[in-house]
């Protein structure tokens, strides 16, 4: 259990961020939505400020903990490009990603978000399993 404290507290901070954005600005903390509106030129200052804050996050973590968060990407570059295309396309078509559906949607008890989370968890699990079997 001890090993999971940082994950639990980190998750609670993500929830706090979503609650703050809703109660202060009345907005959903969905990253694909925020990024989509930013690229479409909608409410640029607010959406840009959120993205800048997101990018400051790892530096704040370094201030608190003394180390940068670990980021290891074993995937080859063609796989990274394909994954990025699918994540971008899918998040737009499915109206959200892990944050909008996974955090805010589930907290709102939205049936659409519950269906979305069940779907992307399933295809994510199948993808990882198949890739492990193909390249052990």
């Amino acid at each position, binding site marked *: 259990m001890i090993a999971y404290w940082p994950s639990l507290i*980190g998750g609670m*901070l993500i929830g*706090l961020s*979503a*609650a703050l954005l809703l109660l202060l600005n009345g907005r959903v903390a969905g990253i694909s939505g925020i990024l989509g509106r930013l*690229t479409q030129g909608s409410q640029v200052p607010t959406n840009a400020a959120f993205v800048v804050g997101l990018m400051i*996050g790892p530096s704040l973590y370094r201030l608190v903990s003394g180390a940068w968060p*670990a980021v290891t990407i074993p995937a080859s570059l063609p796989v990274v490009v394909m994954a990025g295309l699918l994540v971008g396309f899918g998040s737009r*078509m499915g109206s959200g990603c892990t944050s909008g559906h996974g955090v805010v949607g589930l907290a709102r008890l939205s049936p659409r978000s519950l269906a*979305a989370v069940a779907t992307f968890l399933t295809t994510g699990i199948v993808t990882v399993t198949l890739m492990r079997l193909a390249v052990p």
Partner: protein
Amino acid sequence: MTRPTWISSAQALAALLAGSIFGLGLSMSGMLDPVRVRGFLDVAGDWDPSLAFVLGGAVAVAFVGMFLRRHLRRPALDTAFHLPATAPVDTRLILGSAIFGIGWGMAGLCPGPALAALSLGLAPVMLFITAMLAGMTIHDRMAAPHPGGSRP
């Protein structure tokens, strides 16, 4: 859309604060690391359950926010809440989420952690973001149901 300048500035500051807390939370949670994200999705292999704690903690605290919202007529810095209207589950939602999940599983990256990890200056993350923006644009040009699309 005419509103006092201080409101816009206050909204931007609130967004900056919320974004920073989100990024700090992601960094602390381990979700910034694609290896751990894929470890969570690898339920039949060497399963890493930590992301269940991330999601559980996030939903629990966000739920309190959603509960408080019911007692408010409007958010502190705007005239109304901007929440997506309830809509039925449809093919686009399921197909889009299925495609998203495949991409998420392939590299272990999704939009939030990828944007936060951008500040670490890693080339694969930059490549992922570029491809992700291209994927969003391809969708909006070729597969959008109506201009502008919708939200969760």
